[in-house]
């Protein structure tokens, strides 16, 4: 079967080559080779396909044929149900969304992928014919539990800490204090109520816990994407406060930067456009002109701190984004020292 397909495709490949279409040629050659391989594999796999044609030529007396048989179906050959395909697809989806959304989601997807792979391995392990109960008990007691429980605990703690910290860093100062207090009181109340129960329904706890966990992660991710609130630092006398420039929606939110000639200028550049590259680059003219300094591009959502000494003559220059030179423009002023 496949041999025929391979042959036909090889012919088509030759045709495409005659058309001077390199890609088509390579493609069809590849298809021909692959299908030839597939056909070879299938024939080697020992699929016996010979049987007499219908109707039997010449006719045979029906009485001479052995009677029809039936074959009972072996129910043990059925594959057992598994959640792993579903979770594997979820992981693929998360990974894919991460490619569009940002590095953090990709990392989350990869970590989830590790868990799903482990789960699938565990299921295949259990279903292997050589698996025995005592072996399973030994594995979970000696192997999984000593490593697994601490790992799960650390991961949970890490996730909780990270999420809450992102939330607290994103909201205004007063709100972060309030949130922390409210969260603490809420935990106290909930666990107090649980401790008072005589009998606690496991499903309820699992559902509530899962809900809280998912909500926490969602809030944490959202806060992480939103970025930090601005912090005030006690400025030393000699160093000027850093200038923060935010790029969002292919535009600078800050349109003016002022630095002092000869002094270290600290510019904190925050790129909030997920997946898009921006930078800050200083030129002598509003459009064109010669470059004074090109800051390193970063891909959103990300932040970078530029520390640069500007030695050019004091005056008015332009800063713009090298990738969006018309949409993102601002005024860059160099002051003389001492003014």
């Amino acid at each position, binding site marked *: *079967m*496949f041999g*025929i*397909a391979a042959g*036909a*495709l090889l012919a*088509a490949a030759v045709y*495409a080559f005659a*058309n001077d*279409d390199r*890609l*088509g040629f390579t*493609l*069809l050659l590849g*298809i021909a080779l*692959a*299908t030839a391989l*597939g056909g070879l594999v299938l024939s080697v*796999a020992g*699929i016996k*396909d*010979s*049987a007499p*044609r*219908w*109707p039997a030529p010449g006719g045979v007396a*029906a009485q001479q044929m052995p*009677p*029809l*048989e*039936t*074959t*009972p*179906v072996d*129910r043990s*050959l*059925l*594959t*057992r*149900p*598994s*959640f792993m*395909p*579903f979770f*594997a*697809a*979820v992981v*693929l*989806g998360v990974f*894919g*969304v991460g*490619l*569009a*959304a940002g590095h953090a989601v990709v990392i989350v997807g990869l970590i989830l992928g590790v868990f799903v792979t482990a789960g699938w391995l565990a299921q295949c392990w259990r279903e292997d014919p050589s698996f025995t109960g005592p072996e399973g008990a030994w594995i979970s007691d000696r192997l999984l539990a000593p490593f697994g429980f601490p790992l799960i605990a650390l991961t949970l703690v890490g996730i909780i800490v990270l999420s809450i910290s992102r939330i607290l860093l994103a909201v205004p100062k007063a709100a972060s204090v309030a949130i922390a207090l409210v969260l603490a009181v809420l935990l106290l109340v909930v666990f107090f109520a649980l401790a008072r129960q005589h009998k606690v329904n496991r499903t309820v706890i699992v559902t509530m816990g899962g809900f809280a966990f998912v909500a926490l992660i969602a809030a944490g991710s959202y806060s992480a994407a939103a970025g930090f609130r601005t912090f005030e630092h006690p400025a030393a006398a000699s160093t000027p406060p850093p200038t923060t420039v935010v790029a969002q929606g292919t535009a600078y939110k800050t349109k003016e930067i002022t630095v002092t000639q000869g002094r270290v200028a600290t510019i904190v550049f925050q790129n909030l456009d*997920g*997946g*898009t*590259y921006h930078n800050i680059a200083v030129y002598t003219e509003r459009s064109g002109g010669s470059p004074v300094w090109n800051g390193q591009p970063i891909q959103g959502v990300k932040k970078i701190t530029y520390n640069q000494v500007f030695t050019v003559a004091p005056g008015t220059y332009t800063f713009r984004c090298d*990738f*969006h030179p018309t949409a993102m423009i601002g005024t860059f002023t160099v002051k003389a020292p001492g003014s």
Partner: protein
Amino acid sequence: MTLIEDRPSPASAAPEPQTTGAAKPVYRPDVETWLDTTDHKRLGLLFVYAAIAFAVASGVLGLIIGAKQASPSLNLAADRWVRLYALHTQMSVLLFLTALWMGLAVYVVPLQIGSGRLAVPRLLATGLWTYLAGGGCFVASYLIGQPNGAGITQPTPIPAPPGGANSATTLWVVSLALIGIGFLLAAASLLTTIVALRPDGMTLMRVPAFSWATLVASAVTLVATPVFLGGLLMLGLDQHFGGTLFSPRTPGNLPIWQHTVWLYGRPDVYLLTLVALGAATDIVTTHAHRPSLDHRAVVVLLGLFGALSLTSFVASDSVTHAVIVPTYTIFTAAVAVPLGLTALLWLGTMARGRPRFHVSLAYIVGAILLWASGAVNAIAAAASHVNFPNGGSVWSAGNTHTVVAGAPTLIAVGAIYHWAPKMWGRTLNTVVGGLVFLCLFVGFFAAGLCYYLLGYNGAPLGQIGGLSSYQKTLYDIAETGGALIVLGVLVLVIDLVVSVAAARGTRTGGDPYGGLTLEWATSSPPPAWGFEDVPEVRSEAPLAYVRAEVGRARGGSDMGDRGELPAVGGAG
């Protein structure tokens, strides 16, 4: 154990637990058992339900874009319209039709070949959930922004904006990749099943037409989808980094776009017709109560169709500005040959058999009419030198609504009506089925005809505004056709809900039609393990053979002297 002593009838001998005693619903609505299932019947049904949901969504989108085209003063921004248009075209082919046929195949094929199970069901389950994830991401990508370009049906590549495209574009590319991977995994599983799990006696030549078509289609999918994935990788990187691979500045990139990304659509839509042909052959032979006139010819023709669908890669090297080309090259026109010959075989089989009417046959007749109209219009377009502006002509939309999407959709719905007794244990309402057929057929035909006529009038694809009154009338009629299509799908959903979920349809046994192939040799719906006992296969119509044996054992042969099979009544 021999068949004759144990079995008075071809149906399963085991008592069906669901018909005795208190009625226990067969499919418990536990979410868990649907999420972790490896039962091919459930996986197939999930595909079918998802496909129908996407069909409704895509139909509504089609109504919206058609309304805007018919009445350009409607309050809908142009860039929104482009987004909805891209959503409609891609959703209906990729997310609806392909999934619907995949679901039918996944359900029916393991039963037809007598294995009762899939070869690597977890692979197919992964494919199903990945397809759903991809579908979700696809819709999301259009909701969160404007993906670059109007979809993968454009004949020229979409250049990347400098600085990189927005995240909506990346998500769109990723979602297409997920959908492709999902169908690739499912095709691999199906192919392995058909190749490796057939019982003794079921040679490849004896495989029923639908299963054979699925085999060919899975093989072609296996070969065509990775090309698409490669193209998506290039497109994704290009868009993400704002590169120049697909910009007009780079020489030589047009064939890359055409071969990998755009021309994926060609084998893909051919495959939809291929499995439709296979299913229709099985439907025809079942209701004609005789095997096909020449089963080997059917096998060869379907295989030829599949091979030709791949060579469509070669077809459009030099054609740069048409999407679905009316000026067919040899290879593209050649697919009409197996299609026509197969249809002739159906007519011959019906003539030689003792047919009993079933509503699914009406769908096949409708599909033949749609194909015929497509052929007529193809010749007319070539003869009248239709003007094809650079963005494509509305003529292609007409072709899509009749040949590419209309006919396979009709046959798919017909297949649902045909196999509904097996899948849910209840027959769907014949009258409602006829109503659905009328809505769908008239809708597709009207929409298709209007778009064809608009194409002859010179209207470009995606035209908004600047309509002559003739064009406006045609767009109005096309909109009405689209409304009929949506109505048809909704009525189908109602029928399913009433007959199956509300359990108002007639209960059936294992073999309501007196079928010829193995899927009728088990209860309706089958148990989780498929069959209690698989009858021995000695021909491509195993159950007919079984019935003949039974008739012979009872004494006397009731064979007609033309060598026909006995027309056994439908009791299972």
